Structure formats: C-alpha cells, structure tokens
C-alpha cells in the first residue's frame, strides 16, 4: 500500500531563517506531487505541483520554492522566512494516467514563524 510522509511535524522558526520541509511517498512510482498551504479561514492554497523529477510548476508567486530531486521526494524551501509564511503545510500525491483522480494527503507540518 502507499504511504506519504512529511517531516517535521511542527516547526518554529524566526523571521529571516531558511526553511526545508520534506515529503516522501512510498509504494507508488511517478506520482504527481503537490504542496499546499492551509491558513486559518482560507482553505487550501496550492503552492507547487510536480508531474516528474525536476518538473516544478508554481501556482502562486511567493517567498517559497520547491524541488523534486527524486521520483518520490518533494521538498519545500525558503531562503528567508516571512511572518506570513506561517501555516499548515500539506503534501499530497496522486496517480497520473489512470482512473484514480483523488489526491492523498500527508499528515502536514505546522510552521510558526516568529
């Protein structure tokens, strides 16, 4: 069966510090991968998606970047965090090219920028 991992679970970082959040998927190959941010009262905001290694699309211009160094690894980064980067970050995957259309979410990372 497939599983998705995110770490760390919680993170408190000062303004101006760097960020690296990691997401890995097990039990599937060539998944589509997604990073979302969830802020209170604003639902889920799609930040990045990837359909393959090294292929990243950005949905919203911002202080963050994403990379996919391996097929089942997706990393969210920032060089200098802003207060507005606080939120709950969710990684998700979906199978491409089949009849399955839903996304499967990881447990999330709670980021607080102080």
């Amino acid at each position, binding site marked *: 069966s497939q599983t998705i991992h995110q770490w760390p679970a919680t993170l408190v970082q000062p303004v101006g510090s760097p960020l690296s959040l990691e997401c890995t998927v097990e039990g599937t190959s060539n998944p589509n991968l997604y990073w979302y941010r969830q802020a209170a*009262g604003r639902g*889920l905001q*799609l930040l990045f*998606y990837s*359909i393959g290694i090294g292929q990243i699309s950005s949905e919203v211009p911002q202080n963050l970047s994403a990379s996919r160094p391996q097929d089942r690894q997706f990393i969210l980064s920032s060089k200098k965090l802003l207060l507005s980067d606080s939120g709950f970050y969710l990684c998700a995957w979906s199978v*491409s090219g089949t*009849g399955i259309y839903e996304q499967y*979410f990881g*447990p999330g990372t709670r980021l607080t920028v102080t």
Partner: protein
Amino acid sequence: AQSVTQLDSQVPVFEEAPVELRCNYSSSVSVYLFWYVQYPNQGLQLLLKYLSGSTLVKGINGFEAEFNKSQTSFHLRKPSVHISDTAEYFCAVRNRGGYQKVTFGIGTKLQVIP
C-alpha cells in the same frame, strides 16, 4: 477556470440530527467532484467522489452527496451525526481531462453538539 464555494464556514448540529454541508462549483467544462474531511492537526482524507454515473454518491462514515448539474451543486449529507464527525469538511473540483489540478473550497467546520 474552476471555483468552489462552500456557503457555510461553520455548522453546529446536535448529535443524532441530520446535517447538510453545501457546496457549489463553477466551471466551463465537465468536472469531477470530491469531499474531503480533516480532523484537527491532520491531513485530509477522502470522504467520497463523483466521477460519472449515478448522481448520488455514497462515501465513508455514512456520508453521501448528490451531484446536481443544473444547480452546479454537490451538497454533502448525513442522516444522523456523531460526536466523532466533528471536523472540517472540504469540497473540491477538478476539470475533466488534462493536468489534475484540484481547486478546494475554504472548508466548513462541523461542530457536533452532545
């Protein structure tokens, strides 16, 4: 472009009472529709999905939803709620064909009152 509107940000309901969480969508093409549930500090879990066929879709935990194309709605219902149903519920839409970008609503918090 597609969009999703969840009309109620919070819905309080007494235990064992019925509940309906409303969702309307907008899209210029045919769509797939989803409902996800999120328990506190966790990722999202798929409740049910509409891909094609019968407009009444049954999901996990006793939930069901009905696709109404003329009213562009996909309301979620449960005839009798339990305390354990207290969570946030997200409606989501994805256009048929092409890349699997999913648009989520801002969520509805269901509060079941004992």
